[in-house]
């Protein structure tokens, strides 16, 4: 993660017209590719895969405020694009047995295939944009507020809807029994946040900076009382700050407290 951050810092400086990229603003790899094709005014009929891939990867590298999950998904797509290119340049490798499996999984074979994917995808992307506009317009009008918690309504007769609600409830119930004191947040909190996100680390960095700017603090103060997740995020934040030369970490005596000061 620190590597990626390092790269993105570099890129920001190198790329003068550098526009901010947030993967979260894209719905997926194809959405980003469409955006690239449009913003660079490439002719989809003359898609140059190499050029597109290199732009795509540059985009990913300069991407900001991105969760690791997002990044992973986009890079996985990018690597398949690259692999494809390699195979088209070195067709001989196709014979290797273990490469064969990879090829079978692959979804496109060349520019033609990628172009076809984009062509199929693009109208839906427009459809989504159109629907977003529709929704915004509709949301300017309000209907009467029902006096109970009856929004949203479910059409009766939707058997699968009924069934899935039950299985969700059961999940929640079992979870509740498992953890004893159940609170709705904690369920969602734990799942996607299991891997600390860059954003969390960045936020923590700012917090830490604010507290140590006033006075030098011991590591034990900074790591105290927090939960496990917070602990990891704090450690990552400290490492990153140290790497960037934002803090000075010292230990005055063996086994003494480690002191953290802002530089």
């Amino acid at each position: 993660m620190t590597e990626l951050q390092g790269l993105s810092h570099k890129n920001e400086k190198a790329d003068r017209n550098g526009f901010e990229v947030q993967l979260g603003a894209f719905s997926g790899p194809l959405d980003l590719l469409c955006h690239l094709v449009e913003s660079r005014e490439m002719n989809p009929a003359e898609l140059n895969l190499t050029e597109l891939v290199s732009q795509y990867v540059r985009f990913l590298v300069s991407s900001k405020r991105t969760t690791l999950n997002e990044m992973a998904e986009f890079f996985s797509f990018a690597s398949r694009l690259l692999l494809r290119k390699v195979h088209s340049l070195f067709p001989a490798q196709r014979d290797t047995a273990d490469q064969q499996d990879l090829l079978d999984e692959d979804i496109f074979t060349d520019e033609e295939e990628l172009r076809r994917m984009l062509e199929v995808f693009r109208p839906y992307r427009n459809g989504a944009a159109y629907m977003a506009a529709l929704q915004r317009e509709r949301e300017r009008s309000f209907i009467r507020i029902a006096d109970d918690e009856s929004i949203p309504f479910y059409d009766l007769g939707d058997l699968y809807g009924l069934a899935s609600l039950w299985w969700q409830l059961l999940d929640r119930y079992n979870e509740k029994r498992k953890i004893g004191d159940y609170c709705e947040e904690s369920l969602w909190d734990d799942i996607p946040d299991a891997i600390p996100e860059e954003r969390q680390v960045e936020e923590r960095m700012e917090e830490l900076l604010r507290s140590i700017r006033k006075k030098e603090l011991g590591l034990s103060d900074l790591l105290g009382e927090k939960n496990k997740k917070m602990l990891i995020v704090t450690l990552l934040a400290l490492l990153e700050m140290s790497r960037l030369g934002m803090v000075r970490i010292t230990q005055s005596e063996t086994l003494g407290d480690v002191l953290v000061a802002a530089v």
Partner: protein
Amino acid sequence: MQQSDENNRIGLLEKQVEAMLFVSPQPVSSQEIASYLGVSAARIENAVKTLRDIYAKSHGLTILFVSGGWQMATLPDLADTIEAFSNAVSMQRVRLSKAALETLSVIAYNQPVTRSEIEDIRSVRCDRVVDTLMKHGLVRISGRKKSVGSPLLFRTTDRFLEIFGLAGINSLPSLDELKDYRAEDDAFDSLERTHGSADEGDNYE
């Protein structure tokens, strides 16, 4: 209403008040509206008066003054029509709130079941919801449980089976039948799977 200029200005205020009364499920006092719109309560009173006049002239709606506030409602003359209509509509085209549908699912999968058992699973009270379900003929009382306080037991009705197109209560979808769309909640699970053989479309993560 004499001066066109004044008319227009009052027009916007009236529209705002009208829309507020429309969306609000409870009566709203002039003071409350006034504080939201940043005008005097007296101006609100005037606006409401104008609205009431407009509605009184020729509308199926009216503005009532109840428990210290204004509330939009249907004309008293139409009471019979409207009451019958709203029952008819809600029977014909039943739509349930999430709370109601959840409760229905608990009853369907666990029948016969008591109210406190339902509440245990949903961790919210459900007397009102159960009443709604009974009113719609989706749920019925099927007896009393032989335990302390002998609480009522609830079951789904034949109408329930009909509406959901079920041959019998045993045909309710199992967890397995829904696995097609249910999200894998465990992030690590999906990571692991990319290393193994990628079945279906899972190889994108």
